[in-house]
Each structure stands twice: as structure tokens, then as C-alpha cells.
């Protein structure tokens, strides 16, 4: 799909273009589901569990039902439905047992939000509190309580996942490449470490919200802040055993998602309330507190990496073991496990590899997709590890990375051949290196050290990610010409802030040769009216939907040319067009305007031909395969986007306080379609990555109560947390099958930021930190060479990490 048009001839692609949705949002006129009100609409509230694990002895709802204005009350035992993305393991409301703090136990729909809340408060639940299992490693013990004793009875996607009934393992992903045992024998150095990070909340500014109307004859309409209208519809229909044609999903503007609004969320619960209330539309808006615990989070990870390195610094073998904390339900965590498993080694060549990645049930809010889909979490460990390995063998960490980087002729962990056009990780590393002046301090930096008494440290890290998606991931775009010769495109790729719709408008204008103002992308997605798209996730939208948009533009032009050729009594091969008309190339005065062709061409005597002009573009991922379940070999990657971050920090060695002075983020995006949009993704994702790195994370007590479900206790970055200087840099190695050579970059900016911070802090102070986030007190403790104290589950050693290096050298002491 690479359009071989010289950059100089491109009119819109690669040019600064304002977002097509900006003015609507700037005036407050953009409609989000949270703004919507419908005639007869009821408001819902949810009763949630105060316990991490408990048997439900009794639920008393009578007082709630009797409250004037209450129209429906539902509890789990009256609902015979189970929902699940890959493992069908979740009831709509907890039945018999609650499995995590904040789980929905009962729900109410009433005339007002106040009545609904009052009714929810009147519901009395009697629990028999049970001992929860909170840490994934504890959950693997033989005597651990089972979060899902009936795991063996659940449906699951067999092509991709392997649950282990009778255990807490929701999935085990395996990958085997080469002969790691033999390679470890040959290694000069063997270095093994463990890295950890807690669960994190996505924090879209708009919390999850849905309005559902369960109409007559089981005709269901869902308005939702969802990232994935069609996958939502599919999962909904499966859960409720409804034909797909009965269910319509409408998604207007969405106030952020970051993965947390992929798949299915609160919609089934709102649907059963509507059904019980006789078909009235019911609206449920998650409170911010519920966003932390009723809705899913990003999974906690414990990542153990063992690396065998040759005398000259070549990685010979790597053993990678991931313990993913799924929380109470499998949701996306099983696929995060799978996708992280097959790219666990980062953008480096590892000839002999063994990966075992486990998704483990615990009694905590469940894990789901979050920007980076596991790669933020495992790159924390991996890119810290690369530095620690390099230092242990006496090599510069950046040189060690470059020496081991994937390049043309390398093979990935799954056996994929890396080609020149896959992308260029070393170019990214070098650009980051130059941007931060890696390896030296400038005069200004030395003066700053002298003036502040702080130490400056620098680091460069690498990263990679491919879209995690089924091999048959597909999309379509329909392009309709309006009566005035402008066009309107419909697609169900949700633009919840990324700016993809603007980029697609640019590509359509480019391919049609029309002015950009003549191209409209319909913002609201509607499964009854718009063509299929799998989901808006994985940084795959620009490539797949961009290709479909180009094909739709070509189809529309072909259909227009067919009619124009008849109207002009010319051959198609002699025709050309501009933004207004189709004309005969050698007699340009012989022309017919798009306006004349838009709904069908009418001859002067009234005879007409053609009909409304429509272009259809369909695109499906090409040549991907399922992965072998024993070896992990196959081709899962639509494309690989490589990247690097360079970071400069200054640290007070006495207190552990630090400032991030500069971050330079570099991505091989193939082709920049919209420079300001790419920059926005680069900087926005980087700061979200710094949030993860510096302060965000779930804190539990020993009973599994979530202690910080608010912005007071779970800080996210504000403007003051922006580094003093931020830089976004693009590398353009064209993606052969990408639209105009482009590949996705929505998630990548967040990946490996935490490791860059950890490495820069270590370079400044020697602090060896292996868990994140890196709060000032953690840095101080590590500078003091004390054990990192973990308070992510208070008063317990959960999640803490080993600060003592486990380094062995063949035939000698380390």
C-alpha cells in the first residue's frame, strides 16, 4: 500500500493539519455519552463489594425496591449470563462469591441519580469474609485458594490461550527458540534479576459511561464511551445469546480510553437494568472511585530475566518468566500475557530464548489493556536489565544495546525475519543519544551541578511493539460523495483523542486529489450504519484503516471515472481529474464535474446514468499466523514500531529528590502523516509513562482493600510534572504495507520511560532500583543501599524486589 509519491508532491500527507474535531471540542459542543439525556431515562447506581473475597450469604433488597422512584433492582442470582473476552469467566453481577474489592453485587435504576444512590445504600449484603489471595506468586502455591474453582468449565479461545483448571493460572504462554540450555553453558556471564511493578489506573478524564435501551422484541441500543463498537456488540450478543442484528452500538465522542474502554465493560449491567425497567433507557456513569475498582486496571507484573552473554557482549540466551496479575477475571490480561510473551526480549536479537508467561488470578480488581499492552510493564524490567547486564560485564549500556539490536537478517523471538524496511532501532537509539548528549556532561550541565549540588544522570533506552491482534483483524471504510462533490467517510475506528480521523482525512484528500475541506469523517460510530472494524486498540488503526481509506478513495474514483467516461464519450485511460471535475487529458475543456456525477449523471435530455457515488475500501491484516502453543513460533506482527527515549535527570543524593530535565522520544513511524499529532502522541504518552514511573500505582492493605482510589491518593502528572524540556523526533523507514509508508505510534511513547528514569537515576547515584514507581523515598532508600521497602500492599513483603545482584561469572567471582 506504500504510495510511491515523492514527499515534495504530497499536498496533505506529512503536512501540519489542525485536528478535524478540535473546534467542536473547543466550543464545548462535542457530545460525549456523559452529556446525553433521553426521554424517560433512568439513572443507575451500583452496590459494590467492600471485601476482596467473600461468600455472599444474603442480599436484602426490599427496602430499596420500596423506595419511591426506584424502577429496577437486580442482583447476581437472577442473571444467567456470563461475559468474557477470551475466557468467559465473569458474571454480570457477583454470584455466590465476590472476587475483588469494588466488584458489582447489585444495581439499581431510578428516576434520579439521588434516588438510585439512596436505593443502593439501602441494599443490605451479608458476607462471610474469606481470606483473599493477593499476590500472583502466592496464588501459584499448592494450598492457595482458587479464585475460579470452575475454571475448567469456562469457554475460552483455544487457538491462543491455555488455562490450567485446578490452579489460578488463567493462561500459560510458552515460547521456545533455539537451545537456551546449551547457550547458557557457553555464556561467559549469566545475569538474573527480577523486576516488579504495581497495578495502575488508566484515568481517562471521562469515566466509563453507558446508556442502554432494551426495547421491544429484544432490540437493544447501546450508547457507550467504548473504544470498540463491534467487539462490544459481539461480546454482548454472545453473553445474552442475541442475534447481532438486534443490537446497535453507538459511540459519539469519547473522553479518553487508553485501552481501558476496549472490549466490554458496564454495558451488560446497564442492559439488564433497562430490561427489568420495562425498556426505559438507563444511564450508568462510573464514579471516579468506581473507575479504579469496579472497572479494570493495568496488571501488576513480576518479571524475572536471566541473560547469558558472550565474552564480547553478545546476548547468547535469555530466559524470561512473567507472572502477570490478572486480578479476579481474565479479561485482556491473558492477551497482554500472550503479546508480551512473544516480544519479551525487546528490540534485541536473542538467538536462544525461553519464555514462560503466566496470567494468574488473584482477588484484586482485574487487569485489562492499557496503552502499551504489557510493554510498559515488561520494558521496565527489560530495559533496566539491559543496563544492569551491560554494567556487570563492563560495557557501556548503549553500546551493548546497539551491538545486540535487531537488524536486517535478525530473527525475532517468534522466528520472524527482520528486514531493512521493518524499521531501524539503532537510528532511534542514536537520535536519542544525540538529543541528550549521552555519555558526557555539557559545560552548562556541569555548572548546573555546581550551582545546585545535584548530580546529573543520563540514559538511553530502546523499545518495540507490534499490534496485539488476531491474524484476521479487519476493517472497512465507506466513502460517499455528497451532492456538492464533497465526500463523507464512515468507519468504526473510534477516535477518542489520538487524532487518527484527521490523519485518515488527510490520506483521503491526498488520494482523491481533493481539498481537505471537502473531506468529512463522520465522528459518531454506529454499528447499524457503519462498516466493521475489529477494535480501536493496539496502534493498528492508522495502518489498517488508512489502507482501507485509500482503497475506498480509489474505488470511489473508479466508479466516478466509469460514469464520466460514458458522459464524456471518452476512454477511461484518457481521463484525469482535479478537485472539481473529471476531464479528458488532451481536451481539458471536455469535462464533467464531481457535482454532476455525485448522485448520477443526467444528460441534457433527462436520461441519467450511474447513481450515487460510493467507494468501499476493505482491508485485512496480511500473512499473519496463529502462534504455535508449545513453541510460540509464527508471525503475529502486523508491523513493529521501534523507538527510544533519552533522558536527563538531576538528583539530590542526600534526599532522593529528582527533577527530569529532558526527555527526547524517538519513534520510527515509517511516515509522519500529521506532524503535530505525532508530536502530541509522543509527548502525551511520554508524560503518561512518567506518571507510571514516578508516582502511580494501586496500594492495598493485607485484606485486599484498595486504599487509594482517588486523585488525592493516586496522583497523576500535572503540568508541573512535565520535564523542563521535551523533544519528539521521528525516524522514517517506510512500512511497505503501510498507508504512505506509515505505521502506528499511539502506545509506544509510554513504553520504557520508567526504565529510562531508573537508568538515569542509577547513572547519577548508583541506586539500583528494580521496582517502580520510583518515588523520592524509594530513590533515597536505594542510594542508602537499603532494601527497597514496598508499601504497595502494606505491612507485607508483596511486590518487593531483590536489590542484591544475582550475577554469576563462569569460573570466577563476580
Amino acid at each position, binding site marked *: 500500500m506504500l504510495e510511491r509519491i515523492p514527499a515534495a508532491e504530497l499536498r496533505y500527507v506529512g503536512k501540519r493539519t*489542525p*485536528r478535524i*474535531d*478540535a*473546534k*467542536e*471540542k*473547543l*466550543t*464545548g*459542543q*462535542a*457530545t460525549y455519552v*456523559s*452529556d446525553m*439525556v433521553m426521554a424517560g431515562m433512568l439513572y443507575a447506581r451500583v452496590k459494590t463489594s467492600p471485601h476482596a473475597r467473600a461468600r455472599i450469604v444474603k442480599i436484602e433488597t426490599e427496602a430499596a425496591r420500596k423506595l419511591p422512584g426506584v424502577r429496577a433492582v437486580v442482583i447476581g442470582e437472577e442473571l444467567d449470563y456470563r461475559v468474557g473476552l477470551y475466557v468467559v469467566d465473569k458474571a454480570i453481577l457477583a454470584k455466590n462469591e465476590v472476587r475483588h474489592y469494588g466488584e458489582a453485587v447489585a444495581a439499581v435504576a431510578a428516576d434520579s441519580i*439521588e434516588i438510585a444512590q439512596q436505593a443502593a445504600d439501602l441494599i443490605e449484603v451479608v458476607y462471610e469474609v474469606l481470606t483473599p489471595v493477593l499476590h500472583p506468586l502466592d496464588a501459584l502455591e499448592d494450598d492457595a485458594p482458587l479464585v475460579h474453582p470452575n475454571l475448567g468449565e469456562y469457554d475460552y479461545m483455544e487457538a491462543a490461550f491455555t488455562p490450567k483448571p485446578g490452579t489460578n493460572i488463567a493462561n500459560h504462554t510458552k515460547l521456545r527458540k533455539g537451545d537456551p540450555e546449551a547457550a547458557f553453558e557457553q555464556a561467559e556471564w549469566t545475569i538474573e534479576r527480577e523486576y516488579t511493578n504495581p497495578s495502575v489506573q488508566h*484515568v*481517562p*478524564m*471521562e*469515566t466509563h459511561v453507558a446508556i442502554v435501551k432494551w426495547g421491544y422484541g429484544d432490540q437493544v441500543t447501546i450508547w457507550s464511551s467504548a473504544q470498540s463498537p463491534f467487539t462490544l456488540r459481539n461480546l454482548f450478543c454472545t453473553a445474552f445469546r442475541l442475534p447481532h442484528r438486534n443490537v446497535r452500538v453507538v459511540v459519539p*465522542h469519547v*473522553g*479518553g*480510553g*487508553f485501552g481501558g474502554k476496549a472490549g466490554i465493560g458496564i454495558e451488560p449491567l446497564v442492559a439488564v437494568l433497562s430490561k427489568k425497567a420495562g425498556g426505559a433507557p438507563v444511564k450508568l456513569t462510573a*464514579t*471516579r472511585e468506581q473507575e479504579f475498582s469496579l472497572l479494570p486496571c493495568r496488571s501488576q507484573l513480576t518479571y524475572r530475566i536471566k541473560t547469558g552473554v558472550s565474552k564480547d557482549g553478545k546476548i547468547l540466551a535469555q530466559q524470561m518468566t512473567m507472572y502477570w496479575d490478572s486480578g479476579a477475571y481474565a479479561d485482556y490480561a491473558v492477551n497482554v500475557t500472550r503479546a508480551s510473551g512473544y516480544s519479551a526480549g525487546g528490540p534485541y536479537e536473542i538467538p536462544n530464548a525461553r519464555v514462560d508467561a503466566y496470567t494468574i488470578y488473584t482477588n484484586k480488581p482485574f487487569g485489562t489493556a492499557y496503552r502499551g499492552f504489557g510493554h510498559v510493564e515488561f520494558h521496565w524490567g527489560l530495559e533496566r536489565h539491559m543496563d544492569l547486564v551491560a554494567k556487570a560485564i563492563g560495557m557501556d549500556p548503549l553500546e551493548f544495546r546497539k551491538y545486540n539490536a535487531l537488524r536486517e537478517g535478525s530473527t525475532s523471538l517468534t522466528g520472524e525475519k527482520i528486514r531493512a524496511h521493518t524499521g531501524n532501532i539503532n537510528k*532511534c537509539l542514536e537520535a536519542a543519544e544525540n538529543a541528550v548528549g549521552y555519555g558526557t556532561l555539557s559545560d552548562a550541565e556541569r555548572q548546573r551541578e555546581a550551582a545546585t549540588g545535584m548530580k546529573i544522570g543520563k540514559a538511553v533506552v530502546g523499545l518495540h511493539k507490534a499490534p496485539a491482534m488476531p491474524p484476521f483483524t479487519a476493517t472497512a471504510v465507506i466513502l460517499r460523495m455528497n451532492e456538492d462533490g464533497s465526500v463523507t467517510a464512515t468507519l468504526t475506528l473510534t477516535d*477518542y*483523542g*489520538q487524532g487518527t480521523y484527521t490523519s485518515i482525512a488527510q490520506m483521503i484528500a491526498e488520494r482523491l486529489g481533493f481539498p481537505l475541506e471537502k473531506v468529512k469523517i463522520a465522528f459518531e460510530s454506529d454499528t447499524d450504519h457503519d462498516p466493521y472494524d475489529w477494535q480501536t486498540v493496539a496502534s493498528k488503526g492508522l495502518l489498517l484503516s488508512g489502507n482501507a481509506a485509500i482503497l475506498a478513495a480509489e474505488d470511489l474514483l473508479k466508479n466516478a471515472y466509469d460514469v464520466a467516461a460514458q458522459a464524456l464519450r471518452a476512454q477511461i485511460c484518457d481521463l484525469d481529474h482535479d478537485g472539481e471535475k473529471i476531464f479528458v487529458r488532451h481536451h481539458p475543456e471536455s469535462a464533467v464535474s464531481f457535482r454532476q456525477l455525485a448522485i448520477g449523471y443526467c444528460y441534457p435530455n433527462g436520461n441519467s446514468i450511474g447513481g450515487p457515488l460510493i467507494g468501499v475500501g476493505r482491508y485485512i491484516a496480511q500473512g499473519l499466523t496463529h502462534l504455535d502453543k508449545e513453541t510460540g513460533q509464527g508471525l503475529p506482527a502486523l508491523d513493529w514500531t521501534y523507538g527510544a527515549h533519552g533522558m536527563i535527570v538531576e538528583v539530590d543524593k542526600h534526599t532522593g529528590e529528582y527533577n527530569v530535565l529532558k526527555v527526547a522520544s524517538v519513534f520510527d513511524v515509517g511516515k*509522519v502523516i500529521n*506532524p*503535530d499529532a*505525532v*508530536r*502530541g502522541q509522543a*509527548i*502525551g*504518552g*511520554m*508524560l503518561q509513562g512518567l506518571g507510571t514511573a514516578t508516582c502511580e500505582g494501586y496500594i492495598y492493605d493485607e485484606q485486599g482493600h484498595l486504599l487509594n482510589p*482517588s*486523585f*488525592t491518593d493516586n496522583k*497523576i*502528572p*500535572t*503540568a*508541573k510534572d*512535565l520535564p523542563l524540556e*521535551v*523533544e*519528539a*523526533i*521521528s*525516524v*522514517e523507514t517506510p512500512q511497505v504495507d503501510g498507508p504512505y509508508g506509515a505505521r502506528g505510534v499511539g502506545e509506544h511513547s509510554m513504553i520504557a520511560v520508567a526504565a529510562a528514569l531508573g537508568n538515569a537515576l542509577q547513572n547519577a547515584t548508583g541506586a539500583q532500583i528494580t521496582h517502580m514507581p520510583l518515588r523520592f523515598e524509594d530513590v533515597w532508600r536505594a542510594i542508602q543501599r537499603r532494601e527497597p521497602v514496598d508499601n504497595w500492599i502494606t505491612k507485607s513483603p508483596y511486590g518487593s524486589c531483590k536489590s542484591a545482584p544475582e550475577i554469576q561469572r563462569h569460573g570466577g567471582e563476580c
Partner: protein
Amino acid sequence: MKRIELTINGDLYRRDVHEHRTLLHVLREEIGLTGTKEGCGAGECGACTVIMDGLPLNSCLVLAVEADGAEIETVEGESKDGELSGVQQAFDRHHAVQCGFCTPGMLMTIKDLLRRKPKPSRAEVIEGIEGNFCRCTGYEQIIEAVLDATGQLEEKGEIKHA
């Protein structure tokens, strides 16, 4: 129920409201001005920022009855006669909007900031918008937009090519 009067963006609204309802809920649900957003309902995120009698505040923390007789400014009053304000235009030029959910509150905070400091420094812009969360943009393009709107941006932030 209590009868209140609010002057919002210059227009007078008279409503009978429950005493426990917040200004935010009355604006959004009873007057129908949904431009102002609710991000947390607890005064932590700034999405619901409006200007009341010349002071920016979290409208989720003000009871509507407390606002009786007040002059309220919201995002809906920011553009005039179909023309975006200078700050709105700068936001548009600089991609200072992504999902757009924090944007109305951010614009109100900046409106107040520029009244107090017509030419804020970068540090003053950062200080000024600190109470408004944006999860998408990383703030940089918002800061640049404010500097540009006040004629202070020396060079437009750009992605560089390696």
C-alpha cells in the same frame, strides 16, 4: 427546592433547584450547558472549572444555591458570533486538544489566568494550569498555545526528523 438566578455568559437563567445539587449538575442537567465536564466530582481534576463572579472554581464543589445571583462564565461563552477566541484558535493551531474532555475547564482556567497576567511566562502558565488534569496531551502543546495566544511563542514546537 429553592429558586435561584444565574447569569451565565450574559444570559439570565431562573431555576428551582434542590438545595443539595451542585452548580455543575445544575449547569449540565437543568440548564443544558454540557460543555462543562465532570471528571471526578471531588474537586481534584479541574474538568468542571467555571468562572464565578470573576473567580475560577471547581463547579462540582459549589452548591447551586450558593451561586444564586452570581455571574458565571463557561466554555459556551468563549467564542463570539461564530468566531473562536484567541486562545481557542491557538489551541486549534497547536493540537492542544486530544480527547477534549479537559478542554472546557482548561480554557476557563486560562481565561482567568490571562485576565490576571496578560503575558504569563512559561512558568506562570504551568503554575496556572496545574490544577487542571489532562491525561492526553502531556500539557506541552497547551502551554505553547497559551504562549502563542499571548504573542510570546518564539518558535513553534515541532517534531524533528532524525
